[in-house]
């Protein structure tokens, strides 16, 4: 799979190239700002764009705006945003395009190479990868009342589920059995009046729709 990287720190760019190549990606080009990223995507039509949020010239949200633009113009290119801090507002803007094929992770997650590569692959294949910190911000955004009906364990499960993990992934992350996870998920859907669905990313969409509908 081909990827382009947009990151203004040259130092980190080198590391990102190595990590993506280790994960089996072919890095077509690396750029340092949003404009150049759009041009690179137009030229190379990669399966994945790995994008830093803060880039020249404004050093605020250039990456988010470029990501939204990419998802709008080239739906075949998945986007993973990287940032020093994750912001629920950026996540909401990114997810408003289409929850499939987008990811939003803290930069420090790249250091856990294997997990990061798995998340990026999931996104490139049309899935979702949200940083746990984004998920907790999104959860906070809604009124607590329906969530108060969830047990702490069920909220943990919901959080990990929103990151885009499968039942097996959730079980591994929370070190519980898979059957227990399935039970928790059924409880969550029941308490939140959500229809159950089996495909991973449809579950995420359901969670996100729920978060978006009742948020703010």
């Amino acid at each position, binding site marked *: 799979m081909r990827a382009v990287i947009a990151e203004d720190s040259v130092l980190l760019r080198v590391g990102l190239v190595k990590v993506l190549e280790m994960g089996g990606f072919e890095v077509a080009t690396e750029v340092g700002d949003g404009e150049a990223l759009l041009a690179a995507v137009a030229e190379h039509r990669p399966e994945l764009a790995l994008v830093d949020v803060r880039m020249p010239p404004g050093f605020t949200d250039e990456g988010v705006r470029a990501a939204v633009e990419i998802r709008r113009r080239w739906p075949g290119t998945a986007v993973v945003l990287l940032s*020093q801090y994750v912001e629920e*507002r950026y996540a909401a803007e990114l997810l408003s395009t289409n929850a499939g094929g987008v990811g939003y992770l803290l*930069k420090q997650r790249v250091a856990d190479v294997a997990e990061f590569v798995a998340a990026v692959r999931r996104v490139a294949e049309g899935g979702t990868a949200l940083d746990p910190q984004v998920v907790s911000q999104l959860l906070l955004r809604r009124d607590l009342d329906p969530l108060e009906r969830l047990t702490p364990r069920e909220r943990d499960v919901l959080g990990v589920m929103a990151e885009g993990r499968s039942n097996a992934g959730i079980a591994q992350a929370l070190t519980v059995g898979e059957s227990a996870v399935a039970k928790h998920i059924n409880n969550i859907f029941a308490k939140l009046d959500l229809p159950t669905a089996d495909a991973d990313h449809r579950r995420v969409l359901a969670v996100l729709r729920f978060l978006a509908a009742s948020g703010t």
Partner: protein
Amino acid sequence: MKIPPGLRRPVLRARRDTGFLAAGVLPHLGLVPVWSWGATTSVQGGNRPLGLAASAAVILLGVPVLTAVQRARHRVLLGVFLPRPAPAPERRWPGAAVARWLRAPRTWRQLGYHLLLGPVLAVSELLVLMALPVGLAGATCSAWAWGLPVEVRQEWFDYTTQLPGYTLGGLLLLCALPWVAGAAARGESRAAMALLGPSPAQQLRERVDELDQSRTDLIEAVDAERRRIERDLHDGTQQRLVSLAVNLGLAMATQPDLSPGAREALAAAHLEAKQAIEELNDLVRGLHPAVLEDRGLDAALSGLAARTPLPVRLRVDLAERAAPAVESVAYFVVSEALTNVTKHARATRAEVTVRRVGKVLRVNITDDGLGGADARAGTGLGGLAKRVGSLDGTLQVSSPVGGPTTVTAELPCER
């Protein structure tokens, strides 16, 4: 001439004061022509309208010129700065500036100084200045009187026995001169201060405006500085640390046949690098979050609330964004308050509301903890009150023992 050290200061001061007084005589007589015109016109008839017009012209030109002369005289000869009035706003039409000048109470006080007080001061200056030649002549008369022809001497002094008396009087006059001249100079500069400068109320108003402006500038400078530090750390150290962690992660992933010791050291370094990133992130985030700038308070606070280790209910109800300085302080208030809740309150939940109430941004943080927080007891609350006060805002802390604690900050959004 060599002056004995003990006399140096009084002599130098007397020289400065008499110089100052001497320089005042002519400018203080500057508007006397107006008097003489007035007198001649009223006594001899003459051309009344012409005389009035000439007087008005002399006054119009004379007051600003003489005021400038007095200002220079005080500054150069006495080292006293007469406060200048605040610069008037630019007017396109010069007539408007003249009309404004004529309406100002300051103009009439200056006119009073030059027209009425000036001649009086000139006379007193001449009297003080005459003390020097008179004193000198008197003090030395016992010496030079003997050189006079007998008839003249008898005509001037009647009896030579009176000569020591004149000498004594002259010496006393010379000794008194420094104090008399000093008192006259002080009195003059006080009068000039009162009549030529702005009134005390005006001075206070100007001072308040000045302080207000400099405080605003200072707040903006501090804010800009925080932003700069945040940017520098983000572009420099934070990227370097992430790169370090990534390289360590790559090393662990790509070197499967390391000795157990090396693997352990690598894992420890990897973990510590990640912890360093977290710690630096927390610190830098507290300085000035970038999202505050481009998405506003609401977006910035959700990140803050999510990082708090207890459940926080957040309600932000703002139709429009507040000024950057207000947003920055509001963010700081919530940040500090939530830190306090986490550290001290032993609370299970907290609630943050931000609302615009009229012209005020009201930030409210409540927790269900133990209470008993004291703004003076070295918690972050003291610094919080100062930061809020810098925007003319108020901070209220209600924290009865047993809880709950409520922190309310009100920040004016319009000035």
